[in-house]
């Protein structure tokens, strides 16, 4: 029997500025199946589903629901067509109860009076039927993250959806909660509902899906039935074969002496979940240690802790012999850490201040830039002039608001500021994200130069090319743990193995 197509997306294309997020993607959902969208961050999974859910408008392509061509312009349209979506970030009103949240925005059969009795009956029915245990009268802020997710699912079911899209639903759940979620999903399936499961975790995808569609860089790189594939193949499709090793000319490290030592580091994320589960590693002088991994596996928290903006719950970080964990940003800068943060617009720079101030903001209070309580703007401007020449920062002048610079030049401002202090250790997070090839090359060059001059560099990047291009050793992070470290002076990188480690399906002993 031919399976019934519920949804068919044809030749979907979506670009953000110059970035192709979905490049002519075809995607089908059949009745009563669980289909996974597998891919790294930025592969285009969420974008594709947000188009289906009416949150993004596609540039081109067609969508068919039950064989009929439709235009979906808002989530409201999507829900009317029986499509529901649970986002990574929940959309609940914290101060209202579960029941109130579920009926929020729906017309009431009683006109301006809300029909709570009817709603409660239906809600309890849904809770019963799918095992989505949650107290209808609890306020959202009282609930755990797992319970909040259940409320989101209930909300969708209450609206009579047939297709449920779940965006990285397990990212916020405990293993027990994941089991419960999977149970619920299997009940859906039995009832003939369809589920789109967005994930980058191989094990889960292999456990729950009937069919797996793999995306990479905005295109479908494969489609497999679960029975006919394995984790190894999926990892390869996800990470890609064409990632070839481009080893740059490097002065080889003769003797390694550890510079930055991280010991048993534990830290929470913003949701108070453990994001770093006691990791230990070190970065040597004159090497680049690349951190590979899908975003959201603790890299951000590691960056924050090293930069001094997140206090660890336990563990230590030593730079040479100075303890830096728990110290303030200023102290950490003074001890010789150069920080190139992931969020260059909101952390690395203050865009509304003039350029010359941003070029000294991490050390404006040291001579020759200030004396006593006064700032010496003459010296600062002279210094800023020198830096924009040296680092070829394109700007009308040093007096303009920093906001007026282009992305690549903004990153050069940070780079110039950091390198001008000749730091012993540099942490660079996503240093070239969103930059053009020219700027990217330049930043890579400068990082390698710092390394060759003896600095230790911790490079956190989602871009595997970049990690492979620059790193002496590669460390893979998954769910707040280190899955393994590949020392390239001793072995070649096995891309498949790397993919497996990134997706949490393989772990090496870390020596």
């Amino acid at each position, binding site marked *: 029997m031919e399976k019934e197509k519920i949804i068919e997306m044809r030749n979907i294309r979506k670009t953000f500025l110059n970035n192709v997020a979905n490049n002519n993607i075809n995607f089908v959902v059949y009745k009563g199946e669980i289909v996974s969208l597998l891919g790294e961050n930025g592969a285009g999974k969420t974008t594709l589903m947000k188009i289906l859910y009416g949150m993004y408008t596609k540039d081109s392509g067609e969508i068919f629901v039950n064989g009929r061509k439709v235009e979906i312009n808002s989530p409201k349209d999507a829900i009317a067509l029986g499509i529901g979506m649970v986002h990574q970030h929940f959309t609940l009103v914290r101060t209202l109860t579960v029941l109130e949240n579920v009926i929020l925005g729906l017309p009431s059969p009683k006109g301006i009076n809300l029909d709570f009795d009817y709603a409660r009956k239906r809600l309890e029915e849904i809770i019963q039927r799918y095992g989505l245990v949650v107290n209808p009268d609890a306020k959202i802020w009282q609930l755990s993250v797992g319970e909040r997710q259940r409320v989101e699912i209930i909300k969708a079911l209450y609206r009579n959806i047939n297709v449920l899209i779940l965006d990285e639903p397990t990212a916020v759940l405990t293993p027990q909660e994941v089991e419960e979620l999977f149970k619920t999903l299997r009940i859906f399936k039995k009832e003939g509902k369809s589920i789109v499961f967005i994930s980058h975790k191989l094990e889960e995808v292999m456990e729950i899906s009937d069919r797996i569609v793999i995306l990479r860089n905005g295109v479908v790189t494969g489609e497999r039935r679960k029975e006919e594939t394995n984790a190894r193949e999926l990892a390869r499709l996800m990470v890609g074969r064409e990632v070839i090793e481009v080893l740059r000319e490097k002065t080889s490290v003769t003797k390694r002496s550890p510079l930055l030592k991280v010991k048993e580091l534990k830290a929470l994320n913003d949701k108070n979940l453990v994001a770093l589960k006691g990791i230990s590693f070190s970065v040597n002088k004159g090497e680049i240690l690349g951190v590979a991994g899908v975003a959201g596996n603790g890299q951000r928290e590691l960056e924050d802790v090293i930069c001094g903006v997140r206090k660890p719950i336990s563990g230590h970080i030593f730079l040479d012999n100075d303890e830096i964990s728990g110290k303030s940003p*200023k102290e950490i800068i003074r001890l010789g850490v150069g920080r190139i943060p992931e969020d260059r617009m909101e*952390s*690395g*720079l*203050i*865009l509304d201040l003039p350029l010359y101030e941003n070029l000294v*903001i*991490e050390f404006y209070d040291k001579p020759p830039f200030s004396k006593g309580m*006064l700032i010496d703007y003459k010296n600062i401007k002279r210094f800023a002039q020198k830096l924009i020449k040296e680092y070829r920062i394109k700007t009308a002048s040093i007096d303009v608001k920093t906001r007026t610079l282009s992305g690549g030049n903004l990153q050069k401002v940070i780079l110039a500021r950091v390198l001008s202090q000749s730091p012993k250790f540099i942490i660079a997070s996503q240093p070239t994200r969103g930059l053009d090839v020219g700027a990217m090359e330049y930043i890579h060059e400068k990082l390698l130069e710092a390394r060759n001059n003896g600095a230790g560099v911790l490079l956190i990047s989602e871009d595997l090319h970049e990690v492979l291009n620059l790193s002496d050793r590669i460390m893979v992070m998954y769910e707040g743990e280190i899955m393994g470290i590949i020392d390239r002076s001793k072995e070649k990188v096995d891309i498949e193995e790397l993919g497996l480690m990134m997706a949490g399906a393989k772990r090496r002993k870390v020596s």
Partner: protein
Amino acid sequence: MSWPTIKLEKRMPPPVWFQVLTPVIAVFISLLISAVFILILGKNPLIAFYYILKGSIGTWFAFKEMLVKAAPLILTGVAVAIAFIAKYWNIGAEGQLYAGALAATWIGMLNLPLPKPVYILLVITVGFIAGAIWSGIPGYLKAKLKVDDVVTTLLMNYIMIYTVSALLNGPWRNPVTMYPSSTPIAQNARFPIIIPRSRVHFGLIISLLAVLFMYFLVRKTKLGFEIRATGANPSAARFLGIDTIKSIIVISIISGGIAGLAGVGEVAGVHYHLISGLSPGYGYSGIIIAMLGRLNSIGVLLAAIYFAIIINGAQFMSITLNIPSYIATVIQGITLIVMLAMLLLFEYRIKIGRSK
């Protein structure tokens, strides 16, 4: 069913010369709107504006009175402006003004055996400290505990205003007249008059010094840089090593102190005793002055003078034309709204469309 949607979209900021012109345009537009109200009252707006100018700067006497009015307005304007630069939303300059006035009155009533300059310096210092404390408390709460500063500074106004009122109706009531006003402060505690045959007092010099201080603070000092960075993006400032907590606490103290000086001037330079109507809302006007002056020292000075002209001029105009003097308050309010709207339109364009 679909409603038209109104969306705000970010846009590139207009050129600098236009930004400098904004307050002028805002003043012009607000006067146009005010003219409508004057028309409704059945009077000719042009004549009304003429009397406003005549009553404020049209004569040497009026001009001097305008300067008396400008002194506290400059101080509260500076106080609010430096706070706003750090995004410490000090709505409490009114309360801080009264705190300064209360402290100055207290010291002044002690009749200390001090030479005039020393006594005046003491009164100024104590008044500054009182305002500083009254603003430092919400500043500390904001910086350390993230307590909403708009609410705390605003509500602390009432605590101070009613405290003053309670004192004046209780222990400090003038035993001779039985009016709710304090006994006069010592002769040696009073500010000297700086223009003969006028009420223009030493407070005007203090306020001009405050403008200079603000210019210097913002442009030349580390603290000035720190409050600008903190105000522009607190989380980035923190990341980049600036002690944003310290910056906010320190600027809240300085801001409150300067507002306190406005109260000192009213007691020691104008009334010589404390009364409950000491300030007709100088603290609140300071907010509008700070915004109209675009948080710039010279801008604040000009805006304060403009307000002094409006307030004194409207008084004269209302008597002459027999319309309520509240028109001055109306013009102030409209100016703020127009200015805020213009600042918004700098950064955003309004897009009206149909919801999809």
